[in-house]
């Protein structure tokens, strides 16, 4: 799978990229903020977009809204955020995301989790 990962924390994006590449055998592109993610999806198609909730310039929710409502993108979006409360999960769903990964995540389980979300969401 070709995955676009938007995450501002360099450590987390490194760990996530290694996890997705080494454990899930995916191809990962990393961007550092929402605006870059929006630019990137206009340049290239991805099988999955993973957005961090809190990001500089454009936060995850705004990015998701731009991609789904303004650009009418069909690519599935999964959120990844430390905000684990129900309301932000619901906000993500309402904006068109198909799932939610809670931080801190267990790298050994993340790939299975993503597969499960994709199965259920499709």
């Amino acid at each position, binding site marked *: 799978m070709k995955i676009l990962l938007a995450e501002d*924390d360099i*450590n*987390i994006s490194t*760990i*996530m990229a*290694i*996890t997705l590449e*080494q*454990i899930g055998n995916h191809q990962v592109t990393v961007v550092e903020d929402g605006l870059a993610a929006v630019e990137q999806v206009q340049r290239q198609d991805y099988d999955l977009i993973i957005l961090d909730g*809190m990001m500089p310039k454009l936060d995850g929710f705004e990015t998701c809204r731009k991609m789904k409502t303004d650009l009418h993108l069909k690519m599935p979006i999964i959120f990844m955020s*430390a*905000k684990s*409360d*129900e309301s932000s999960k619901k906000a993500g769903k309402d904006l068109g995301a198909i799932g939610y990964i809670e*931080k*801190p*995540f*267990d*790298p*050994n389980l993340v790939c299975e989790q993503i597969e499960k979300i994709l199965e259920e969401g499709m």
Partner: protein
Amino acid sequence: MNSIYRSLQIQFYFVLCLMLAASYFTFKFSKEIVAAKTNIHSHSRLITLMYEARTQPYSKKISYELQKSRAYSLNPTRALHISNFIQAYNSSNRNILEKRYQELLDYENEYVNLNETIIESKSDQIFAIVFGALLLQILNIFLYLRAMQKQMLSPIEHLTQKINDFMSGSYSYRFTTAPDNEIGNLERSFRLMAEEVIKNMEELQALDQAKSEFMNIVSHELRTPMTSIKGSLGLIASGKMGDLSDKVKKLIGIAEIESNRLIRLINDFLDLAKIEAKNYSLDRSWVPLEKILLSSVESLKGLQEKANVNIQILGYPKVEVNVDADKIQQVLVNLLSNAMKFTTEHGSVFIQADIFENKVYIRIKDQGPGISEENQQKIFQKFRQASSPDRPLVKGTGLGLSIAKALVEAHEGKISVVSEIGKGSEFYFTIPEYREEIKGKETIAA
């Protein structure tokens, strides 16, 4: 100042003057009536005497009585007529006496008529005064009530309405009508109070906002490094990054356990902050009580084995409860893990549920050291720990009971403890919403 007190004063003086005037005239006219009545009385007496003088032989006594009548007569014309009659009587001249008698009688008839007229007219006047005063007073009361209605009652009603609105949360404290009197002052004071309250409320709201923003930032700032640590450890432990020696595996294992504990602590702390926030909401559904009890015990299997303590469920009613099952389970787990911490090896912890006063009571009893009365109050507060157990199974943080309390209270229940030093402890909490378990559900499902 158009004060209500002033208008009350004016009202009072008006009524006073009215009463005084009415009393004065009534008194005056009554006196005139009494005088007229006395005159009529003296007239009757005189007529009797005159009759006696004409019909009976001359007597000194009658003469004397006639003199007396004349002396009492204040009217000079009448006195003169009586004098003439007396003279005629004393002279014993029958003809003159008859003449004088006729003159006096004529005069007396006129006199009595005059007095009767006086009585009648004065009575009428008294009646007119009393009746007039009464009418005036009624009119006055009517006008006064209308003025009061306008000056006092409507503004008070208006103000009451404003206060009620204010209490029910619509803060329309801007008054359009504030009359320049005591009611107006009340209204102005209320407005000041309302403004103060609103100011404080806005400050509190801002504070609340700041607090939850702060919690969000803390949550993010704490969980971000924990994500990196847990992620790195997880990747290393997975073996995908290269083989590890047994020692490294063991060390990585310790680091993973401790980072998980730290994450749990952060989550507990943030959970508590969230539950205590005003807009906390539960995910309620009807769940069999049995399921909650059994899965709580099940989830403590690990700790139970480590502590080598027996958990016994003594009994429970077959009911369903309307709760956020995860949260009530968390309450049970917190209470049970405390009970286990304080129970010696091979000891027992008991769970019992029953229905009392229309609530489900869930009790967790242990045979531990008990809690002193003083500490029973404190332990439900954050980070308050009383005695530490002899065998620290897991190092506690003192948040367990605070979270349990907040969760039980979010369900409108209450939580408390009954304990005595040396006799173990019994923690109990209540769930108000329950119903009989629907029978045959399993058979339908099967």
